[in-house]
């Protein structure tokens, strides 16, 4: 209820596992609100889903460990869009997770202090978890 008043986005999901979707412009605001007002100080993970022509969806799961409530926050970046606000200023743990997200999906997190690949080599081409990236993409001199 509080979430709806503040952000105009209804919270779905179950009583202890809420799900909220907001426009990409409100992404950092939502995270700050979740951390400061809702007490969700624990960042479980941050990731993305590629919905092909509908564009990328960034999602994160934060928790209030004292009250045992989890909140899954999501945002759609829109077709062809690959920029998203960074959450590093809110959750320090988002640093590596956003780097992984950039590595795998090519999402550019604006405001990230050091956005570079984390799991793949720095000279890797493409972002493997995009649906447009075929599993058998050749990589000369290897197959």
């Amino acid at each position, binding site marked *: 209820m509080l979430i709806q008043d503040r952000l105009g986005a209804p919270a779905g999901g179950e009583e202890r596992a809420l799900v909220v979707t907001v426009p990409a412009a409100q992404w950092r605001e939502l995270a700050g609100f979740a951390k400061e007002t809702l007490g969700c100080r*624990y*960042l479980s*993970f941050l990731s993305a889903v590629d919905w092909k022509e509908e564009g990328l969806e960034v999602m994160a*799961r934060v928790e209030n*460990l004292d009250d045992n409530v989890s909140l899954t926050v999501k945002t759609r970046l829109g077709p062809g869009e690959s920029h998203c606000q960074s959450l590093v200023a809110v959750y320090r743990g988002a640093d590596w997770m956003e780097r992984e997200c950039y590595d795998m999906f090519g999402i550019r997190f604006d405001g990230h202090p050091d956005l570079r690949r984390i*799991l793949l080599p720095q000279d890797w081409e493409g972002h493997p978890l995009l649906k447009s990236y075929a599993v058998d993409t050749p990589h000369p001199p290897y197959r």
Partner: protein
Amino acid sequence: MDPEARKVIEMGYGGAERLTMNMGPQHPSAHGVFRAILTLQGETVVGMDAVIGYLHRCHEKLGETLTYTQYPSIASKTDYVAAMSSELAYVRAAELLGKIEVPKRAQYLRVLVGELQRIASHCVWLGTWCMDMGGALGGGATVFLYCIREREMVLDLFEALVGARLLYGFHQVGGTRYDLPAGWVQTCRETVDFIDRRIGEWEDMLEDNDFFLARARGVGVISRELAQEIGISGPLIRASGVNYDIRRAEPYSSYEDFDFKVPVETAGDCYARYRVRMVEFRESSKIVRQVLDGLPAGPISSRPGVKSVGQVRIPKGEAYARVEGPRGEVGCYLVADGSAKPYRMKWRGASFSNLAVLPHIIPGHKVADVVAIMGSVDPVFGEVDR
């Protein structure tokens, strides 16, 4: 990393010069392949950049190409020191989505192997950590060999159960694939009793050793705030004063039936992490005994055994399932599209988040402490890099 710390000043004799030192990726204390680029001022670390990804096998992409029956045995290869917990996270996500019932006996068996796995995994942690701190413990390899010897006994149990010692393929969607063989329960009881006695010996060896205490107490302190923001879990967050255990917060697989204690320490240093894990050893054997006492009869799976790769279909939807592995929250986020394969699979590796805390806590410590802190985090790089 602080940009100021990246600057390398030429060697001189003033004592304040900076030196960049590469550690790894093939460093014995890395417990896998991990590279740390340390900026040193004298013997003190002032900046650290962590390089990971050497063990990346694209598990998440692989998960999109394999079916719900094929992937569980691959899931064991994320955290290969605690294969049972990662398998469970994956099949639980599929079961949540498909609303698949798991028979009581299978739930108990899952708890049983999960807790035995925790004992085996903590044995590896204690042994390797003590070996990392080497010289201080009188040669170093003693604790390691003791721990590995006891871990072998647990692996023998797993071998009798599934035929494999490291990567099991024990879980399947709907239950487990194997039931206990004859005589197994008795051997299991003897093993946990034996290991319980050994734990006391290890504690005596370590806690009476001033060198060990000097290297563990007050070293690598993680504050409560930092612990939550980074998202560390398992023994690490409990050593930082946060009472967070998924077996309690969100009981899965009938954990609510068992009586056990969740150890919490407030110091947040290497010694607190050590204490939490030592108590967990005993709590795990306590749970194992309770499972063996109360093991219900009945089927071990609500679904037929694996016959064809595409036999499990999961309806459209998404679910996040998590289990308390030896290293913390092992989670699997599944997005299903109604076919026999997931549309998207995300691994939340406990070690990935746990390792991400290192650049925040290592600056300010001596080089030798880097090894002690890294060992106390207990990362498994299969799970960091996935």
